């Protein structure tokens, strides 16, 4: 499909399926806005926050962590060898934040009041900081993306203004997510005595921001490989491999701080008390932290695409697992009752992530996001199987 001579969007059966998911979600969302949360969700007084906040918002924002960690590596430390992935990381992050904003908007009961926190300052609330930082950071990312947008849509004066703003934008684009990635963890400081002690800690803001940061390179690896397969490009293997050093060091520090924190608070033995929570915690730490650390540190695994990809998928899944543990596993005992999302909550979630994929495809096919690639036949199609035709 082409609109005008400069815009195109290829329609494939897979994309039609995604579009159907988006349409279903849009209809369900409309229904939710008219009839309220009780009509479409299984949320209750015991479980005021569910799938949309726990998964779409908390995980969406965490997974978008690739944006700020890449920005720090490329634009502040000027590690130029990572430039080829910078724009893709920014794009995924921007779309991730838009999803988070949409799910937040869906989730608030009195949605027409969404603008209130801009004018009525509950500055003693962690959520206030989260709200402001996420709103500002999304704006910053839109402006950063504007710089790319105006490479295609020629508008010299605007591009010049954005160019001049770029340094403060880049700095804000790291400071703001650092603050709210940690604040998303601080949200659960209020759950003292209720969130299971293996997760509740005054250091939870540190764990959240740190894991969002080391998640970044892993996420870049996963989405880079996906994009490479979808578009039959060569995966940027040397970049993925070299990024593992960042993840590896940060994960080791994460693990050490985690253990020290548990010992300091005197709850280390709770990890082995055999309860459901302790088992989930052990899975989180062993499968999703220690195993990737080992994989990243073995040369013969790290230098293979399957190796770096598997380890990165574990890291990404591990951060999701951690957030789910904080929101659901760790709170279940104190909150009582039970919660499982309705079909509508699932459909809206699926629709939002489908929109993410579609938006990503549209943007990379129309804007200069991925690095130029010389046209030649290379081995990727053979080595990694036939690319999924996205």
């Amino acid at each position, binding site marked *: 499909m082409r609109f005008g001579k400069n815009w195109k969007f*290829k329609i494939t059966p897979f994309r039609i399926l995604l579009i159907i998911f988006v349409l279903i979600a849009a209809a369900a969302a409309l229904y939710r806005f*008219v009839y*309220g*949360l*009780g009509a479409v969700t299984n*949320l209750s*007084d*015991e479980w*005021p*926050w569910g799938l949309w906040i726990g998964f779409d918002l908390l995980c969406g924002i965490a997974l978008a962590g690739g944006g700020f960690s890449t920005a*720090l590596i490329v*634009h*502040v*430390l*000027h590690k*130029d060898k990572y*430039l*080829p992935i910078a724009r893709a990381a920014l794009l995924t992050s921007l779309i991730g934040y838009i999803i988070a904003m949409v799910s937040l908007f869906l*989730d*608030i*009961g*009195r949605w027409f*009041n969404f603008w*209130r*926190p801009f004018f*009525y*300052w*509950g500055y*003693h*609330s*962690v*959520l*206030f*900081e989260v709200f402001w930082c996420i709103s500002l950071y999304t704006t910053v990312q839109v402006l950063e993306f504007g710089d790319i947008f105006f490479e295609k849509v020629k508008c010299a004066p605007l591009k010049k203004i954005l160019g001049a703003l770029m*340094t403060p934008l880049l*700095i*804000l684009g*790291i*400071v703001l997510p650092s*603050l709210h990635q940690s604040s998303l963890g*601080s*949200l659960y*400081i*209020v*759950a*003292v*005595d209720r969130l299971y002690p293996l997760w509740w800690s*005054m250091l939870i*803001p540190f764990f959240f921001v740190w894991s969002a940061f080391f998640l970044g390179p892993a996420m870049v690896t996963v989405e880079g490989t996906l994009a490479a397969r979808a*578009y039959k*490009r060569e995966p940027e293997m040397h970049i993925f491999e070299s990024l593992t050093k960042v993840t590896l060091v940060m994960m080791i520090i994460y693990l050490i701080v985690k253990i020290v924190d548990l010992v300091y608070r005197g709850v280390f033995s709770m990890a082995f008390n055999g309860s459901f929570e302790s088992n989930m915690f052990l899975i989180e730490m062993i499968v999703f932290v220690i195993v990737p650390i080992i994989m990243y540190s073995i040369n013969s695994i790290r230098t293979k695409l399957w190796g770096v990809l598997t380890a990165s998928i574990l890291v990404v899944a591990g951060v999701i697992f951690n957030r789910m543990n904080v929101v659901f596993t760790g709170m279940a005992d104190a*909150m009582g009752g039970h919660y499982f999302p309705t079909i509508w909550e699932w459909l809206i979630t699926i629709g939002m992530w489908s929109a993410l994929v579609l938006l990503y495809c549209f943007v*990379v*096919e*129309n*804007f*200069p996001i*991925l*690095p*130029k690639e010389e046209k030649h036949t290379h081995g990727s199609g053979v080595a990694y199987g036939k690319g999924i035709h996205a």
Partner: protein
Amino acid sequence: MSKGVLVDITRCIACRSCMVSCKSWNDLPSNPSTFSNNWDSPGKIDSTNWTVVTNHIIEEGDQLKWRFVKRQCMHCLEPACESACFTHAFVKTKEGAVIYKPTEVDQDYCVGCRYCMIACPFGVPSFEWDKTFPFVQKCRFCYDRMKEEGMEPACVTSCPTQALKYGEREELLAEARARIDQNPSYVKHIYGEKEYGGTSWIYISDVPFDKLGFRTNVSEKSIPAYTWDVLKWTPLIFFGWGAILTAMRAYTKRRAEVHNEEDMYAPVDDE
């Protein structure tokens, strides 16, 4: 001075007059209830039941004790819900009630984010799930009666056994101590004196509080104080981290080679 209520669990007979008077004063709808094994239906607070009496059967040796606990918002001295609200829709009034900000112009600050429900350590705030534009509902300490008429809360008025006593919190604490000291059957603890920084509603009992569904051995530090320990660093991190990043960017830029980014990237050509 801040008001409070002393609940003496030894005196409660589970007549539920407090539940009825709460409904009638606050004009709350009645809802059909179901039978529950310990007779305390509905058994938990929700958006139309701002107070409930829960029943507890406690075995102590060969003795069987049946105790009843009136539950409602504890009206914390430093409320977690107030501190969690990002539009400051909840306030603690000087009289002691924790309520939606009673401004005449506009009460409608609430966004419906429900973080107050996560924050409240007593699980009190309830949401009107069945409404299109729900509010968070909970006991208001009969702020309207207290403020305009100088009256005690409806539930206290209707209590036939003086299990509830309304007054200045400090005086109630003194009275609670006196009752505990005079009668050895009381547990030597005033629930709400120190829990989470103290609450306006305080309880005394002859049965250990953990057997009555109270969360015991909890923090004596208020939840807002925990949050503030972290939040207070925000401006410092904002400016400090910003300054460090700016310095690093300036320092490394001189060494880095200049790239023309426009030549580096291109749209994917997937035709």
